[in-house]
């Protein structure tokens, strides 16, 4: 392999399907894409080769092979902080932004019970925060000691009060799987997430990739980052633009999957009027959330519990029983695809409900406070009202064909809704499922990645 330097073979390994995408960054053009069932159980190379075989001979000329990993079950991170609304929340936000799946979050002093719980969660990694710089050191030192003794060998990114660092280095001495990053919350209400994010990626590549059997790809490909982080990079590039080529401005992206739904935003989200007071942690411009209980196949039972089934049925012009029957059928058989017109409508209506729930949780909200002589508004989280562009990605959305617009309509703010969803967005659909690939390409060829996203995202 490797005769054409402008030819990139981009791969995503670890989820149900191994996806490959061949891009000529010089043209630029997406030349081909293909998928095959992932084979982590035996050797990931088998699935990779199967997909490669479907791409055609040119794929073998690729000068560079970059792979993202949705590492079987995701990158499982446990967040440990001090106060739940402050450093614990900061650690959660950092872990999500790094492409992780937050399997548990702990605050204050870790107890024996917490440690037992942590062990049971089997995290791939622990993000340990606590204390602003110059603030509390006691808790993070205690928690570091507890983790060192209670979960030996589990990788840790320590990103808390810098004044505790010396002590933590002593506690974690001789532990190469422990990394130190700048504090995720150096001051109350100020986040600094990039250093922790970089450490998480580093550990992911060095340790987790091997643990999940993905290192077998190493002889042929560079495994560069977790898939959700690649998507976040793509979305950020699409939002900001590159060089002389403008981006699309503030935007929101939704990836409705079979098991989870990921939401990404690139937006300031500040209050729309000076009369609104912002409360709580300010959130990062590039924000990701993932809803582990909202998905179109494996987790559809949870989705059903949370949405108004009658309303879904009305939207699908079906009965509530038909909606429930469909959910039951696909939960047991994730490969089940809608066949009849009615099934398509039901699938789309459920996806719209899931999209709405996931986007609503991602967005901030507005609360009216009545003071004895007047009304005041308090905002928590990001106001995405002004966001003009919503991008839909992911299997069910792309497969939803002409119904993608109906699904994404769930991301639009309804009149009177307290959650601050986009109020008048336009919708784009990632029908060819390119976002993750463009996030990989963005490291080396940002101009081409931007151009290809602009070309292939279709209005709907």
């Amino acid at each position, binding site marked *: 392999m490797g005769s054409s330097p402008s030819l990139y073979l981009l791969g995503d390994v670890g989820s149900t399907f191994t996806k490959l995408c061949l891009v000529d960054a010089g043209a630029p053009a997406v030349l081909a894409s293909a998928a095959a069932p992932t084979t982590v159980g035996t050797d990931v190379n088998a699935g990779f080769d199967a997909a490669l075989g479907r791409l055609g001979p040119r794929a073998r000329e690729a000068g560079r092979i970059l792979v993202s990993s949705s590492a079987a079950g995701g990158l499982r991170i446990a967040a440990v902080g001090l106060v739940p609304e402050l450093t614990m929340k900061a650690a959660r936000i950092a872990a999500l932004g790094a492409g992780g799946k937050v399997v548990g979050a702990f605050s204050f002093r870790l107890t024996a019970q917490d440690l037992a719980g942590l062990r049971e969660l089997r995290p791939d990694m622990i993000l340990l925060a606590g204390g602003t710089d110059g*603030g509390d050191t006691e808790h993070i030192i205690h928690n570091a000691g507890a983790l060192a003794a209670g979960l030996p060998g589990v990788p840790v990114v320590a990103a808390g009060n810098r004044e505790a660092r010396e002590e933590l280095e002593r506690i974690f001495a001789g532990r190469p799987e422990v990394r130190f990053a700048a504090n995720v919350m150096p001051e109350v209400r100020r986040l600094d997430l990039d250093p922790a994010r970089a450490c998480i990626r580093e550990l992911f590549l060095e340790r987790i990739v091997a643990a999940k059997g993905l290192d077998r790809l190493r002889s042929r490909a560079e495994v560069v980052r977790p898939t959700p982080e690649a998507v976040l990079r793509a979305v950020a590039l699409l939002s900001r633009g590159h060089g002389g080529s403008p981006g699309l401005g503030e935007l929101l992206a939704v990836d409705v999957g079979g098991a989870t739904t990921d939401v990404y935003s690139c937006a300031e989200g500040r209050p729309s009027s000076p009369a609104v007071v912002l409360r709580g942690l300010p959130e990062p411009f590039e924000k990701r959330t993932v809803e582990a209980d909202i998905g179109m196949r494996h987790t559809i039972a949870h989705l059903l519990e949370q949405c108004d089934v009658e309303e879904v049925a009305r939207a699908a012009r079906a009965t509530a029983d038909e909606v429930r029957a469909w959910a039951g059928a696909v939960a047991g058989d994730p490969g089940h695809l809608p066949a009849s017109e009615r099934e398509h409508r039901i699938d789309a209506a459920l996806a719209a409900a899931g999209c709405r729930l996931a986007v609503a949780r991602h967005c901030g909200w507005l609360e009216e406070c009545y003071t004895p002589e007047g009304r005041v508004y308090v905002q928590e989280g990001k106001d995405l009202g002004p966001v003009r562009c919503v991008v839909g990605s992911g299997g069910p959305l792309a497969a939803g064909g002409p119904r993608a617009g109906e699904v994404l309509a769930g991301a639009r703010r309804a009149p009177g809704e307290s959650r601050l969803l986009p109020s008048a967005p336009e919708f784009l659909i990632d029908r060819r499922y390119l976002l993750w690939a463009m996030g990989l390409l963005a490291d080396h060829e940002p101009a081409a990645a931007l151009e290809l996203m602009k070309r292939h995202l279709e209005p709907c």
Partner: protein
Amino acid sequence: MSPSPAPPPTMILGVIGADCHAVGNKILELAFREAGFNVVNLGVMVAQEEFIAAAIETKAQAIVVSSLYGHGEMDCRGFRERCVEAGLGRILLYVGGNLVVGKADFAGVEAKFRAMGFDRVFGPGSGPEHGIAALREDLAARGAALGQ
């Protein structure tokens, strides 16, 4: 270890409750900072829990509360108890602003807030300088150095 100057004491500042009077808060922030304190200003409309959360993370020595809109007594109830619950039993608690409502006299108001566990209560005409002088005095009594 080489001797380093003691870091400035940290204090949490904010306007409590649903109170959105923002001007005095900015002035207090500047004045306390000028006087050498590490000021963590939470701004307006701050709930008791937010003061306490910030104090825990920053290991603050004092919480300085303002109330301007006349509902201070209601908003401040239970503040000390909450601090005790959070392990901040000994933190200095100050309150000032417009605490005297209607015809009440300051002595009575002060007694009420003291009974609620506030270490210092500032009446009409008290500006930032009074708060600063008091905080220096109280911290000195506790042996905390002011980094200047």
